[in-house]
């Protein structure tokens, strides 16, 4: 009895406190990049940031909520098209259009969820892909958005984004950084909250979580909508950088979902650290194999298969097997005073 009044619940470990300092240093370096790095480096980092954010969102969906979607390109494409529609037809500044796209996509994802949530497992995956295909075909029909061949943002609007090319690059870079940090923080805070508890419980046993008061449908729907919104925001960012959109690129399964699944599976599904490591590996392999054309996809596929067989928890899983490490501490530890 005496112990009851004198307990404490903590999450941070010494390693996670060191890691926090590390993250702050990395963030500081990233903030300074536009002031010393070249254009190419910034382009690379923008791409890195949006892939990592997409990976965090797919991991939230599949790794934490068990919703294995292969249709996240639906929201990337919608985000891109909304940015184009908002800036070209409604005169909204593209950077302002990004959060607006996020809100609209959150709303669109709700009826979508009611369709795909009727399906389970593999059928859910196929259902999400079909939904994305429907959007692709739909946007190919909208001639005011360029139909099947797509459209570019008119030069006049591009000029209005920022005062010059350097300023525009800087604006897009910082937007990407904000989206990355906010997306990752969202996953981290969600997993530390009672919703994280509910998600882990649902993953381990649906009947038990249900009988402990967890509303499984509502929890999964919340995650689906949140992940769709952020994925849409990333989509808007991607096409703000590209300045050109077409249905095949916007709703590309290979670019926006297959590559992202690779990243998460390689890095370690169901962890926040995994997608970070996976993105590093993905970009590493990509630059190593960039001269070999299509062989690059074959190598990626082989690496993924080998990892799934040998290390289903990914590289981060291999690391935590050896070291008791948490860079984003989520678990609670009870200590007695």
């Amino acid at each position, binding site marked *: 009895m005496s112990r*009851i009044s004198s307990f404490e619940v903590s999450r941070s470990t010494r390693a996670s406190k060191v890691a926090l300092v590390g993250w702050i240093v990395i963030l500081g370096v990233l903030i300074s990049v536009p002031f010393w790095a070249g254009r190419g480096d910034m382009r690379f980092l923008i791409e890195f940031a949006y892939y990592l954010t997409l990976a965090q969102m797919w991991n939230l969906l599949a790794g934490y909520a068990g919703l294995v979607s292969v249709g996240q390109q639906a929201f990337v494409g919608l985000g891109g098209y909304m940015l184009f529609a908002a800036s070209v037809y409604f005169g909204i500044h593209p950077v302002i259009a990004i959060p607006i796209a996020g809100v609209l996509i959150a709303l669109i994802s709700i009826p979508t969820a009611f369709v795909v949530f009727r399906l389970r497992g593999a059928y859910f995956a196929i259902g999400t892909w079909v939904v994305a295909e429907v959007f692709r075909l739909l946007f190919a029909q909208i001639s005011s958005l360029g139909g099947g061949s797509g459209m570019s943002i008119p030069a006049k609007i591009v000029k209005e984004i920022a005062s010059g090319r350097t300023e525009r690059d800087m604006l897009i870079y910082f937007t990407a950084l904000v989206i990355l940090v906010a997306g990752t923080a969202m996953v981290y805070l969600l997993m530390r909250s009672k919703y994280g*508890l509910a998600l882990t419980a649902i993953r*381990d046993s649906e*009947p038990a979580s249900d009988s402990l*008061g967890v509303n499984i449908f509502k929890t999964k729907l919340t995650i689906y909508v949140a992940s769709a919104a952020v994925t849409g925001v990333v989509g808007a960012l991607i096409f703000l950088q590209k300045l050109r959109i077409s249905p095949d690129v916007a709703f590309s399964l290979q670019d926006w979902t297959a590559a992202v699944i690779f990243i998460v599976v390689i890095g370690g599904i169901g962890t926040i650290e995994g997608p970070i490591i996976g993105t590093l590996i993905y970009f590493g392999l990509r630059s190593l194999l960039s001269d070999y054309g299509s062989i690059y996809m074959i190598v990626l596929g082989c690496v993924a298969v080998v990892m799934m067989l040998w290390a289903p928890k990914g590289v981060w899983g291999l690391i935590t097997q050896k070291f008791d490490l948490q860079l984003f501490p989520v678990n609670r530890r009870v200590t007695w005073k």
Partner: protein
Amino acid sequence: MTALLEVQNLHKSYGSLKVTEDISFSINRGEALGVIGPNGAGKSTLFNLIAGGIRPDSGTVLFNGLDVTNFHLHERSIKGIGRSFQIPHPFGGMTVFENLLVGASFSAKLKGQDAEALAIDVLDRTGLLEKANRPAGELTLLERKRLELAKALSTQPALLLLDEIAGGLTEHECHELVELINSLRKEGITLIWIEHIVHALVSVVDRLLVIDFGVKLDEGEPHAVMNNPKVQEIYMGISAE
């Protein structure tokens, strides 16, 4: 006195197999009811019908005067029906402490330190305090059964449904369990307990309900029920164990 739980003419079949056939009974606040019957009689099914894991083909479940027959599992849990599973369902990827935070946060709807304090209190009462930081997936079968009881208690239930939690316990552990359940009763919990270990059951409950092939065979004061020749006939094998 109004009944806390009233079950009226419940029917449930799986294909041609009638698992629950016209079962009715009620239980008052603070009462304890024991449920016995041979393997496959339909006892766990009855719990699922009460807690909301499955819907009856016909019949009604009234809880606190409210018709909850079409309520979801989580809604009934929030209303105050807590249950343990016969086959433990631990959240293997969480610590034992975190397992209890789920019910404390979502069913009992406690926040922050209140939820944590409830979790610690329940761990202490169920003898799991030492295991607080262990992943639940690493627990032994007996510890998992204890965790089932603890998780049910973490919802702060008004009605507690326990499905065979005493199997495999030593005489001493069984005695501790009976003491714990009696102390819960003193706090006002209403209890329905399925158990094959009749002597433990009889030392706790006010009444016994006997189910055989989905049908209610008898209900009443424990000793009178155990002396019913029909009950003795189907139950001999088990009570002699």
